[in-house]
Each structure stands twice: as C-alpha cells, then as structure tokens.
C-alpha cells in the first residue's frame, strides 16, 4: 500500500488549511530512463559485487573449457545420430507395434530415453542426464557419444526439459499427486 494513507490522515487530523500534497496521480517523478536505471543500480552493485563474482567466474570456467569429449560430441552430425538409432532399432524384434508409441518423439528424444533405461550406466532417477553421462564416462563405462551429442544440441537450443530423465519426471509427478 502506498504510504499516502498515513500522511493524508495526519494532515486531515491536524485540520490544516494548507493544501496537502496529493500523490494519487503522480507516483513517480518522471525521470529520464538512463538516470532511473543508474539510480536503481547504484546501491545493488555493492550487494551484488561480492556474490555473483565467484559465480560468474565459475560459469566462465565451465564454459570456456569444454572438454575434449564435448568437442568431439559437438562434431557428431544428425545423420550419425540417426544411423546410431537405426542400429539399435534394428536389433529390436517388436518394431512394428512400438513404432506407434514412439511416433511423437524425435530421434534425439528416443536416443535419450534408450540411454535412460540402460541400467548398465546406473539408475536414471535422481540425477540429470548430463550428470549421469559424465559419471558413466568417469567410471570408464564408455557411454555412447551420440547421447552426449544430443544432450549438447538440446542444451544449445535452450530446451530445459531434456535434463531430467522421462522416468524421473513420471516418478516425481506421482509423488506430487499423492
């Protein structure tokens, strides 16, 4: 609530004949935009300076040094991803029936979901796909580089949904509803 209430009450209580300042129409003084922003920013850099500096430094450190494997993954083309997927798909016997389920999904999403259910790399619940891939890489399990390629591509396009495994989403949604 604007602070006008108190002032108006006081002035009216005193019963002064002076014309009171009314802030009903003019809330903010019209000020050129740049000056306003500068005024807003001035106190905050003092507070912000200490905290975001290490954060931005960390972010920069992570972004500036993409690992060798990430560079390799970025070079993987969409065609190679398709080829990888069709190799997995061809080993499956129940192709015709399951194609119906996978209709709405892009190949990238199919590749990621196949990675999720590969229990060889550990449980997919409770961790993001990227972290799971990196953990598998660190433990020497040789996770397919196509999966990293899809993850990086999706990350670049700004899609946040692919971070969580689909199974994880389903499990969490039932927990919320219960």
């Amino acid at each position, binding site marked *: 609530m604007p602070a006008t209430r108190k002032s108006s009450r006081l002035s009216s209580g005193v019963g002064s004949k002076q014309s009171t300042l009314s802030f009903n129409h003019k809330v903010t003084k019209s000020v050129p935009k740049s000056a306003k922003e500068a005024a807003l920013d001035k106190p905050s850099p003092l507070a912000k300076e200490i905290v975001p500096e290490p954060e931005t430094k960390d972010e920069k450190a992570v972004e500036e040094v993409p690992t060798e494997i990430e560079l390799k993954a970025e070079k993987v083309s969409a065609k190679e991803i398709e080829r990888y997927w069709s190799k997995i798909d061809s080993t499956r016997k129940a192709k015709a029936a399951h194609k119906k389920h996978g209709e709405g999904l892009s190949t990238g999403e199919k590749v990621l979901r196949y990675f999720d259910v590969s*229990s*060889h790399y*550990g*449980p997919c*619940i*409770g*961790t993001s796909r990227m*972290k799971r891939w990196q*953990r598998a890489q*660190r*433990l020497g*399990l040789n996770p397919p580089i196509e999966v990293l390629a899809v993850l990086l591509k999706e990350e670049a396009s700004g899609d946040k949904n692919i971070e969580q495994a689909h199974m994880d989403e389903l499990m969490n949604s039932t927990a919320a509803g219960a």
Partner: protein
Amino acid sequence: MVTLEDVLDSGMLKKPSEDEPEVLERSDSDYHPLHTFTLGKDLQYRQQFADIYFLRLTKIKPAVEEIASIAWEGTVIGGETAKRVERVLDVRQGELCWVAGTVYVDMPLKPNILEDVSKDRWISAPSTAQHYFSDDGRDAVMLEDDSGRIRLVGSVLKSHILVTGCIIAAMGTENINGEFDVIDIQIADLPPQPGRWELSKPSQNDTKKEPKPKSEDVEMSGSPSAAPSKKIAFVSGLEFSGTDTSHAMDLNLLLEFLLGDVVDPATQAELSQISRLIIAGNSIASEAKEHPAEDPAERKSAHKKYGYDSSSYNPLPSQLLDKFLSELLPSMPITLLPGAHDPANASYPQQPIHAAMFPKARAYTVLPGSTEPGWLDTVTNPWEGEVEGWRFLGTGGQNLDDMCKYVPDNNRLGLMEAMCRWRCSAPTAPDTLWAYPFQDDEPFVMKKCPHLYFVGCQPEFGTRVIQGPDGQMVRLIAVPSFAATREIILVDTETLDVSRVKIAT
C-alpha cells in the same frame, strides 16, 4: 641459631643441585591427512541410495572379475567348462557359469521400514545392539546387480563371511528352484598398496636429538631412520560423562601418563617418543537413561521452547573433554575422530566435530578453510591419512559393529580382514548403517590399501597382520574402548608393532 651452611655437610639437608634438569622433547609427527570422507557444503538428498550400490559395483567389479577369471579359467566340473555371464539374470539352468554382483542378505530380524509403516509404528532412531542373524535358515543370501537378484544356496556359503554390500564372484549353476547353487566364491582381495612416504616427506629430525645428552644410541650416519623410533598412541571410548565417574580417575591418570608427569625419567624418555594421539571415537558418553527419580508429569511441565527441552542438556561431558584436550594439546598433536555417541551427524561418513564444542582446545585448531592440518585435527569418521609415511585408515567402530550383527560369531578381526579384502570399508551402508546418498563417487571403496587399519570403540583389543596377493601387508588393530578396558595402544612407527598399555588404579 643454626644456619643452613652449618647443616649442609651433615648429609640431611642439601642445596638444590647445580645441573639443569633434563628437558625431554617429544618427537614431532609427520602428518598428512586426506579429505576422502569430507562431504561438501551443498548436499542434495533428492537422490536414491541405488547410486551407492551402482558406484560400488562398477568400481570393484573389474577387479573381482579379473581374479575370478584367473581362478576359474578352464575349470571343468562334470564335463562342463565354467563360463562367465554378464548379468546375474543371465544364468541358465543346468549351465555351469560364474557371475559377479553385490551380496544382499535378506534377514527378517533386520529393521524393515515397510513393516513399520504397515504396522503404523514410527521409528525415530536406528535400533541398536540387536543381532540380525537368525539361525533357523530364515536368512537368505542373494546376489544382485542392475539386472536383478538371484538367491544363493550351497554349503560353501557357510565358510565365507558375507554381509550386504560386499562384491563377490560366485561360480555355480542354477537349480530347479531357480536358486543359484554355489560351488566357489572369489573376492577382489586387497587393492594396490602405495609405498611408504607417498604423500609426505620424512622430516629430518635427527639433528634435534643431538643436544640431548641422555638420548638413546643415535648413530651419526645422518639417516632419519637412525633416530629412536616414534610411537603413535591410539585410544577410543574415553566416554567423558557427567554422571558416570567410574573411569574418571583413570582418565586423569591417562592424561598424566601421556604428559609424562608421574613417571620416572627412563619411562619419560620412552613416552617422549609418542608423537601423536589418535582418539578413535566415543569421547563423550551416550546420554544417561531416563532419570528414575523424576516424575514423568514433572518433566512434561518443564520449560519447553519450540519443542526442545533445553533443561535436559548437560554441558559437562564436552567441558570435561575440552579440559582433557586443552591440557594434553600443548605437548602432543591430537587427531580426533567422532564416534557413535559424539556430537557429530548421525549418518556415515560423520563429519568432524565442530570446533565450537571445545572453547579451550579451539585455540589449537586451524581456521576453517585452511589447508594445513591443525595441532588439534578434528577429522571425519571414517578417516584416511598418512602418518609417518604410513597410510592409515580408521573408523570409529560403527561399520564393524553393524557388520557383527550379520554374523553369528563375534570374529571382529575376521570381519576387519574381510572388509579389506572386499575393498569396502562400510559394506552395510546404506542398508543397515545410515549413510549419505552418494551419487558421483562413493568413498567407502578402498582405492589404495592402507598400511594400518584401525577400528575404535571395540569391546576388546585385537591385532593381526594380513597379507595380500601383491605383497601388501596390512596391520589390523581393534582399538579397545578405554571406558571398558582402561587400555591404550601404542604403535611403533618403524615396524608397526603394537603394544598395549593398561592404566590401572
């Protein structure tokens, strides 16, 4: 009037002697703690515990499979060669094969959260000192990996120690009941052992010994090993208590013993070789039981603030511990591991006891964030570090006590040996031992074999040396609880020989 000078020659009175008293210096300690078990600041608890099992299996499985394939290569039983199968569920009936996985022991006496929830009971603390082992065959040993679980049967199982969480390779065949009939079991055995002085360098301390006129024979060869060998003292279960004073006198005597106050100069020279004291848990006694004198109604009306009854807090135990430490610290560096009863977090790995608990001894710790270990080093439980070049691994006893509930006999040294050979220092975590849900790396897997493995707060002393296939040698020490046995352990740093000292009134 008789003056002093007149009486001096008679032999009864003497002037103080002119020569300076011996000042013995304590040997210094070469110390390099590792932070293997330190948890970070921002901990997530969203994840499941399955990651711990996955990490453990992935890290130990290659080693187990290597040992198993060497042991069972070309084994022919009943005309059939043993084959390796990739996953536990790939075993086929009638086929002789071997597979590696995690052991899970299903015991009806184990605390089961599903049972409690179904019976509408709420457990707030883990049940203690309860034996899970039931003799009548209700316990089922199973082998598990990411594909599934299979039950193990066979007389071979009785001759091996098996607890939940250890990684084994089992050879056998599936019988008609769907159970795996085991013929032989292999484990990873001791991990590679680093050499002495891997992380730190020996300090040149023979120059310090020269000015001492009464020192033991010091060869003038100049090598550091010529100095009289140092000792490290181990104690656990000091159990400072506000109510129980049965061992208070012995604690005082222990302090005087370590400081060398009450012993003769020859013993003092020996004591000055003790370069470090390691306290392995349970420095503060667990809370006394309900006061029988107080009325339960009276207690309820006591001043309660936000549901916490502050009048029940007794600061005396930690004050006594603080006093003990601050008197000993000027003379000797101390490494303090928390135990089951100490004011640290309840789940494994326990984080160091906060320096705020020791207002006096705090002066000897370092500021948080410093890289150098302090004179008083509060460390995690379990703890890994390099002392005098030897790699030490030690715990406060919870892992061993928990494992003892799985086996019928109280063979503690056997269990310690098994832990080393399984390469896992806390196999029962997280099943019956509360643990943090590790996701990226599980620190309980021993990557390097320690030279000395000690477990504190044990009911009695025990020691053994075990040998590994690559020439590794590990000294196992079960450090007895001081409150129960009044004993402390001294370990010689050159030979890793163990001697026991009993403080008795």
